[in-house]
């Protein structure tokens, strides 16, 4: 009885703190310490509300935002994709990668260290391998002379499935890619061979608001195996590709921005109704509307908005509309051309940037090349990412985007972080992905050397503790 009561109390605390975190966007610890801390939703990086976010699976077993669901069914069983723990994770065999140069990203480099993986998570990182690993049931991988890195995180990819551009309407907030995912497709398999273990699979960018993306692992045969979070992010395209639609309302830049703004304002009204109902301030249950349901997560700050934006004009608009007016958690996608000139302004607002696949521009006035990632970094943008926009650029070439950034002036450490922990943080998964740390997902990649050196390649890729690519025994895919 006591046990039950204690469990109940713990559950209540957890639910309360989870609610606080999700509702008001404050760190878990702060929530437990003080519920009076008022969040600032619109201001700069000091009040950046989302980092670190709670582990989505802790917030909700599905990793989905529960309030995003309509309130009709009384807690029906979760979808097959999300209800059960990933089978592969539970069954992942204990593995120890020993003797390599462990580049943890967040905790420095451990030469000749040992990375222990079990149950699909990173169990421990040790300065040297204990002698009894075999006896303890670990499959030991000898990584002597090799580099061990966390799996790369791609924040802008389109290779998770098919048909992602429904271009009849410019605004499609009711669309989500989770129904389109093809786990284990050949493009994902090649991504493993480039060390990429997680992608944000996005719809678009043929329309202004093309729907909600999903975060996937590249390894695994079923949706259960691969799905990390759906919805993963809202995808918006401010200009460029949507202009090709033409002919309809939104054929001009101001028209498109009007469309986006009105959609987001209606989404915000819906989100407010949801919040009012959930906090008890209102007894009126918001109506089910598949077009609006996911905005609750967006305005709560759980979901980033990845804005396909480039050039000075659009970056400026992105800052104004998405951040200044609506207070959303923005990731500038691409961020090419002169947009990078706004990097101090962007940085001041705590907006994230995922730069690429174009890594440079030519400055005619100066007659010289400008490294865009370097420019963004110089402006102070934190958690700078680089991205491939795969299949525009093959997913396995994410490392090359980072290498290009280095060639154009970015420091190596930032470049490596740009394809690991920065991406994870941008997606709100900084506590789960992006570095080799105890408790994180066992997405670990063994390289022949420094990934930023194009001569080196992947030897072994593990996703959730399972080997998904092994160039030692199987064919080399990249």
């Amino acid at each position: 009885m006591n046990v039950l009561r204690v469990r109940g109390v713990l559950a209540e605390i957890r639910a309360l703190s989870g609610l606080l975190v999700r509702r008001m966007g404050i760190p878990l610890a702060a929530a437990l310490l003080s519920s009076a801390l008022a969040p600032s939703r619109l201001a700069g990086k000091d009040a950046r509300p989302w980092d670190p976010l709670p582990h989505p699976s802790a917030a909700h077993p599905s990793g989905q935002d529960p309030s995003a669901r309509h309130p009709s069914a009384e807690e029906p069983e979760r979808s097959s994709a999300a209800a059960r723990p990933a089978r592969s994770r539970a069954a992942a065999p204990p593995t120890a990668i020993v003797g390599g140069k462990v580049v943890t990203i967040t905790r420095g480099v451990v030469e000749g260290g040992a990375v222990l993986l079990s149950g699909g998570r990173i169990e421990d990182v040790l300065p040297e391998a204990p002698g009894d690993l075999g006896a303890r049931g670990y499959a030991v991988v000898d990584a002597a002379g090799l580099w061990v890195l966390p799996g790369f995180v791609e924040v802008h990819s389109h290779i998770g499935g098919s048909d992602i551009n429904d271009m009849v309407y410019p605004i499609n907030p009711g669309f989500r890619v989770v129904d389109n995912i093809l786990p284990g497709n050949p493009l994902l398999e090649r991504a493993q061979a480039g060390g990429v273990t997680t992608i944000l699979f996005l719809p678009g960018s043929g329309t202004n608001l093309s729907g909600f993306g999903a975060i996937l692992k590249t390894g695994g045969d079923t949706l259960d195996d691969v799905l990390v979070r759906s919805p993963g992010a809202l995808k918006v395209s401010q200009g460029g590709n949507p202009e090709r639609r033409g002919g309809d309302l939104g054929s001009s830049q101001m028209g498109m921005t009007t469309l986006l703004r009105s959609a987001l304002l209606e989404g915000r009204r819906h989100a407010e109704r949801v919040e009012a109902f959930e906090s008890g301030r209102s007894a009126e249950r918001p109506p089910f509307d598949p077009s609006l349901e996911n905005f609750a997560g967006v305005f709560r700050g759980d979901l980033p908005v990845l804005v396909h934006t480039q050039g000075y004009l659009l970056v400026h608009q992105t800052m104004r509309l998405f951040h200044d007016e609506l207070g959303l958690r923005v990731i500038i996608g691409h961020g090419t051309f002169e947009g990078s000139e706004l990097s101090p302004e962007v940085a001041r607002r705590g907006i994230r940037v995922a730069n690429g696949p174009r890594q440079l521009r030519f400055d005619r006035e100066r007659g010289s090349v400008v490294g865009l990632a370097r420019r963004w970094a110089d402006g102070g943008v934190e958690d700078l990412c680089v991205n491939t926009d795969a299949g525009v650029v093959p997913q396995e070439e994410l490392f090359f985007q980072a290498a290009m950034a280095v060639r154009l002036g970015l420091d190596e450490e930032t470049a490596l972080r740009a394809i690991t922990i920065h991406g994870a943080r941008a997606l709100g998964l900084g506590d789960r992905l992006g570095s080799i740390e105890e408790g994180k997902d066992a997405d670990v990649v063994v390289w022949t050397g420094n990934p930023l050196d194009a001569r080196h390649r992947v030897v072994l890729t593990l996703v959730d503790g399972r080997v998904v690519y092994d160039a030692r025994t199987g064919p080399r895919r990249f």
Partner: protein
Amino acid sequence: MIRPMTRPAYRLHLRPLRLVLFVPLVLLSALLVLAVRAEDAGRGRDGAETILIGADLVLTAAGRAVRDGWIVVRGGRIVHVGDRVGVREGEPGVRVLRVRGVLAPGLIDCGSGIGIRGRAAEEASEVTPGVRVRDSVDLDHPGFRRALEAGVTTVAVSAGARNVIGGLGVVIRRGVGPARIEDVVLREDAFLDVSLVEAAAAGNVAPRGSPPLTIYYRIPNTRMGTVFLVRRAFGEALGLTAEGTRPENRSKQAPWVGSGEVASPFYNRAKRAPWVGFEGFEVDALAAALRGEIPLRLRADDRREIETAFRIMDEFGLSWPGLSVSIVGAAESLDLVDELARRRSSLLLHPGGYPRGRRPEADPDYTPRLPALLARAHVPFAFASLDGPDVPLLRERVALGLRHGLDEATALHALTLGAARILGIDRRTGSIERGKDADLVLLAGDPFTPDGRAEAVFVDGELVHHEGPTEVAEGTTIILARRVHDGKGGEHPAGIVLVKGGKVRYVGPGPLAASLGRPLAIVDASRATVIPGLIDGGSSAGLRVDMLGPAISPGSGSAGAGARPELRVADAVEPGDPDFETLLRAGFTTVLLSPDPVGPISGEVSAWKTGARSREDALLSPRAALVLRSDLRIDELRKAKDYRARREAFESERAKRARSGTPPERGSLKPPEKPPDHPPEKVAETLAGEPAQDQAEDLARDLAEDATETPAEQRAEKPTAEPPEKDDALEAFLPLLDRSIPAVVFAPSPEAMLPFARTLAKDFGIRVVAAPTGRADRIVAELKGLGAGLLLSVPLELIDEFETVHLPRAAASEGIRFAFRSGVAAGGAGLPAQVGLAVRAGWSSREALIAMTSAPAELFGIADRVGSIAEGRDADLVFLSDEPFAPTVRVLGVMTGGEMRFGAGDMVTREGIVNPAGGEDGR
């Protein structure tokens, strides 16, 4: 939907179509009058006729199989099933049908487009839950008829996968003839189709540059759009959406004006509101489905679509017991079987096609294994032909699943009772059980063998389809066979042959009532295989040597100086020769009597029947071919050709003048020039011996040049008023040149055969039947190119140094028409055994039978009389104990000209009524 418990007494007069189908069968019996009287007199108390239908095997699909079972039908309903019945033939109001074969419940197609006129979907909108497919179904559509012929009595007609939400399906049991709606429509609003497959997004367009001016400018163009529309519609149907966005209000909403700060951008439907024109019932139909009042069908093929279906089911709580949700298509559900079982949803599989999933290389048997796995997991499943407007080949395709572990009982269940349960019509149909409608299909064999064709179909106990004869004249002999091979490659399992006046009148599936027709003679060969009488393509049976002239005497051996084409072997035949009886007992009913190739022109071949009683009956064709040898003087042929040309010219001139009325002007016409003499000695000398290959080629070239130098037509271009002098020696060649008979050509070697055959065929247009010796396989392809036929004689297998040559197989692989000749008299009786050896060595028995029946008949121009079992041919039949060329096969009996010449054992009963099931009347 309400059916009367009873039907009008006897509705023959009301239903002319049934009359046409059924009554002629009854007519053949003298019992007809009695029967009709009995029926008239004996209407039961309830006014319903009682029909007894008996079969070799009754598969009830409800867990029973009754051998020699009977079904009692009254008022269209089954009142009894068993191996005994309490009703007797001859009782008033009782009609008895004893059929041969397997009776199963009528098959059910759980989803098809049969009967739909025009578009299957209402494409004005993607979401049309309230439209009724029934309104598009034409009950006169020939598809229903074709379905019946395939044994499918009940069809669930669906709007298919084109629309995201397609409409309300209908279950139709059509039968034939005009029918009352309530008898035909088994279930109205039977299910609602929701499509998650690519087809739902197909056909719609997105703008490129400017919005297209079409209704198809709409979502979905992707799966995302499809799922969105489904979810929104479900939410609306469940009343979860805001009032303002209810579909009936939405059309009034302009997307951008009038609603405060900004209008809803999401629907953008000023131009095209998906729900415009549809009223509340649209939502009501969907709501009813989500409440479980109408079965819901989610069409999903690949794995992600199926998982999407699960996700939607979860979101809207569609997994509770009592709710009928079917996943339709489900090709990639192999790994999801347990999940399907957990969700209590049923599966409607596409029976064929079997898309193999994304990774065929990993598991080539991916989906054919699915039915067996579903059965093991107790997931209810049935089959749906899906979208096609045409006949579902359900039975044939389900057989695929049997190769992958599905058992026959489960397969039949899925096609019948299982399907009926999923459709919610199992109280009416789906199994052969008391109280259900008598919807039956008669299969010639087991349901999933190729023999298991639907021979007859009953709906409500009435015969609605029957492949058998519809008219049997009096005085007909009915031959019941286990199997009939028609000699041209066709087979009729459990077939019958009708014979009258010595001719075959019908071959095919049997009539239904074997007990009908006392004036008929019935030959019960139901344990025998029936083939056409065999033909020996070259025999000397019955030839009396003493009557032959020296030139064609087998013993003379002269090189043919005195050979005469006009000599007829027919004149030397003794029809009473015991050789013929020997051949008859071996199954040969026709022989081509042929002189040996003793001279360049060896004489004429004639065709004889072995079982005839008189010379007149025996002689089938006095002149079936001319035997030539390769040392023939080509000059003779050339003369004949010239002779023919002159005669033709004369005839045509005479005809022309007769038409114009002018008498021929003597002076203007020159007498025919004498044809130039060609020196033929060289040719004859060369061919007399064994010419080497190069010599043969030279010869062929010479011959070809000769023939092209001065064509006969040019030489004879001046028409003559004089008829050419009649020349008997040349006359004999004319049928060859007319192509009315072939030349049977012998040559000392294949190398000598080829140039000679080429000359005959190409220069003179003669039909060649080559009778080569030795390595005939080397020239088969060229002979085929000349349009020649082939007569093979034993040995059929040659061993040539290191190579074993199988002549029939070589000939068959080239596709040349060929037959066999024994070359001997009664010894030809051993030919089938020789051919049997060839079959065992790896040749097809079907082709072997053709080579012994229809092929020789066609080669010798007697195919209109013999060589096959077909309407109008002579009734020359052979009854075999087993399949042709089986190792232990025996000839049980032979019929020629419609008369049994002999019959062995108890195979044949003449002039009697035989019930194939045994016993007096089968009961």
